[in-house]
């Protein structure tokens, strides 16, 4: 009875007694969710265009951040470091397309998935071989002092991150909707063979989509690197994106955003108000549990495409 009360009554009493604190947690969670969505976007782009679950997305985030901060540490200005790192990510996309994906055209998705695991090991090792495994500080000038808005505590850094993520999504939406390349990407995502039959070059599209995913990884790497320092652990933030993908659907950009917001807010509220009674440190597994509950009702995720196969 006591346990039931601790789970079903006391947290709600705590919320009712301190609504402002609840809103602080909620806003903090939503802003964290935006950071998760930033990582999830990279997965969505590649899965959408090629049906490949890119296990290496986390490694790409680390790889991009290592180059960016490495160039800055060499004394280069931020803008130049950014431009050159984008160049590195374009080069990486071309190499992956040529050396890994092209030889595996028409292979099962699981083969391509295994190939991305190989890419992960390579990127983790190669990036750290070049730049070392030291923790590197990345200061891009975003303030992270606490801000009190209408009596509510908000972290400035998270607000900047949300704005940057919003701009990124807007840019991607415009790219997909209004450019010939974007339309070609959507065509490939709908049906590879049909797209190829009307002259869409699959290899070029794959290189483009890996480039875009690499640039999204760079943005995620910069934001997370500024938050945590650039270090091996950046590769692990992919784990925070997985429940977002499960919830939002693997093929939907809006799904990644909405999924991120739900996961971020859900795990933070759960940790603060239910954490103690459930043993603490619940936010990681809670995110997966939340995603699993959604799966029971919508196996394709909130915005994923429902696959109907006729026999």
């Amino acid at each position, binding site marked *: 009875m006591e346990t039931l009360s601790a789970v079903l009554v006391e947290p709600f009493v705590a919320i009712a007694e301190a609504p402002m604190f609840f809103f602080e947690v909620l806003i903090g969670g939503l802003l964290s969710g935006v950071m998760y969505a930033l990582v999830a976007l990279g997965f969505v782009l590649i899965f959408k265009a090629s049906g490949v679950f890119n296990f290496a997305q986390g490694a790409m985030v680390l790889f991009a951040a290592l180059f960016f901060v490495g160039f800055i540490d060499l004394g280069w200005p931020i803008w130049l470091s950014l431009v050159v790192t984008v160049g590195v990510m374009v080069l990486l996309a071309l190499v992956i397309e040529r050396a890994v994906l092209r030889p595996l055209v028409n292979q099962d998705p699981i083969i391509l998935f295994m190939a991305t695991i190989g890419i992960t090991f390579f990127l983790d090792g190669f990036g750290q071989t070049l730049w070392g495994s030291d*923790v590197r500080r*990345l200061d891009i000038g975003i303030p992270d002092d*606490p801000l009190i808005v209408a009596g509510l505590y908000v972290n400035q850094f998270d607000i900047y991150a949300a704005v940057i993520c919003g701009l990124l999504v807007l840019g991607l939406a415009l790219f997909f909707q209004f450019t010939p390349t974007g339309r070609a990407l959507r065509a490939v995502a709908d049906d590879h063979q049909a797209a190829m039959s009307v002259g869409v070059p699959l290899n070029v599209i794959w290189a483009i989509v890996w480039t875009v995913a690499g640039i999204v990884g760079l943005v995620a790497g910069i934001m997370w690197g500024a938050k*945590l320092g650039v270090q091996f652990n950046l590769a692990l*933030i992919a784990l925070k994106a997985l429940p977002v993908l499960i919830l939002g659907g693997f093929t939907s950009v809006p799904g990644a955003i909405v999924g991120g917001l739900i996961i971020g807010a859900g795990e933070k509220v759960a940790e603060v108000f239910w*954490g103690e009674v459930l043993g*603490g440190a619940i936010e990681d597994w809670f995110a997966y549990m939340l995603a699993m509950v959604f799966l029971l009702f919508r196996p394709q995720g909130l915005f994923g495409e429902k696959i109907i196969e006729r026999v």
Partner: protein
Amino acid sequence: MMNRRQTLGLAAGAIAFGAMPLRLHAQENAQFIPSLVYRTGPYGPNGEPFANGAADYYTLINARDGGINGVEIVFEECDTQYNNDKGVECYERLKNKGPTGAAVFSPLSTGITYALIERARADKIPIFSMGYGRTDASYGAVFPHVFTAPATYWSQATSLIQYVAAQEGGLEALEGKKIALVYHDSAYGKEPIRTLEALAERFGYKLSLFPVAHPGLEQKATWLKVGRQVRPDWVLMWGWGVMNSTAIKEAAAVGFPMERFIGNWWSGSENDVTPAGDAAIGYKSANFHGAGATWPVHEDIFKHVYDAGKGAGKRERVGEVLYNRGVTNAMIVVEAIRTAQEIHGNKPLTGWQVRDGFENLDLSAERLTELGLADFMQPIKLSCEDHEGGGSVYVQQWDGKTWKRVSDWIPPMRDVVWPMIKESALAYAKEKGITPRSCT
């Protein structure tokens, strides 16, 4: 008729075969010391400076002194990635290497220490878990082969509470204060809880616990609760790796004063404060050895190791907190072997013979001065019963560039810790069917 390639291959094989007896002969008078390290994986940034410090010290002993009383040190690293399975694999791979097998294992992980304790007991190899591992293994009657010098988590917890009390105006002033523990949700992070709870009962402070899931990338919920709801007077942290720097940033983000935020000795390296930038200024942590490259031993390391091109890491990182911890670990191992040689002779020793050296280790202030480490750490004297030996720590504070000592050495509350250690060790012995040996 052999072609050119086959001829070259045969020649190379012959050279290698010919060199083998020489190499084996060279190693016959060598003491093999395995190094379980982690230069890769999520905790690699912290494991690397430790590994470099240990490697450089062993290299120094060989280069400057010709080994330990003429016995060359041969050491081999095995990367565990701070992973228990890999730690056990490394142990099995290295335990029989060298002419007399492994001298001692330093697992560099509480989890791996737990996994190895009974294996090492069966294999008669000592375990030296310096500043980590099972605190109750300090009781030598039950754990004759485990050494925890110079301090354990339980001792450290009592020292930190004494430091907090001193800032508040005495132990009596702790009554009614709120102290939070933010900890890595693992065997390591949970170690101090029992001690802090016992002290809370004794001194009347309220203890709040905040576990953080591995690896600790996201702590916003934890710190909102700490900084905006519980609002403790002091926060202690038992963190590791990225958890530390994230905690410092999140603490600053909720406006928690850094002067009242104290990490344990695994939460107080340059890696923990650098990513947080200016937000980390004022942050404190415990330590049981010096920080910086200002001791004579560092001069020797520069002269005999780095100037000779044998350094394991970057010259400019010599003297960082975790580098110095690696040096400390290696120095204690070397001194234990030296002590064991006094008992068993100047020759390569087995693990169990090295164990005798640990148990009779007397690292006095004079000896530390001879080693170029005066006031670097507190003296250590081990015995059959007491495998911890000292337990004192000091508190250091980050000023934005370096760690500064802000307290004297704080000895542990032995009257609190030692009965708990004995009780826990004896319960372990009962559970495992171990008959404690007599230390009288």
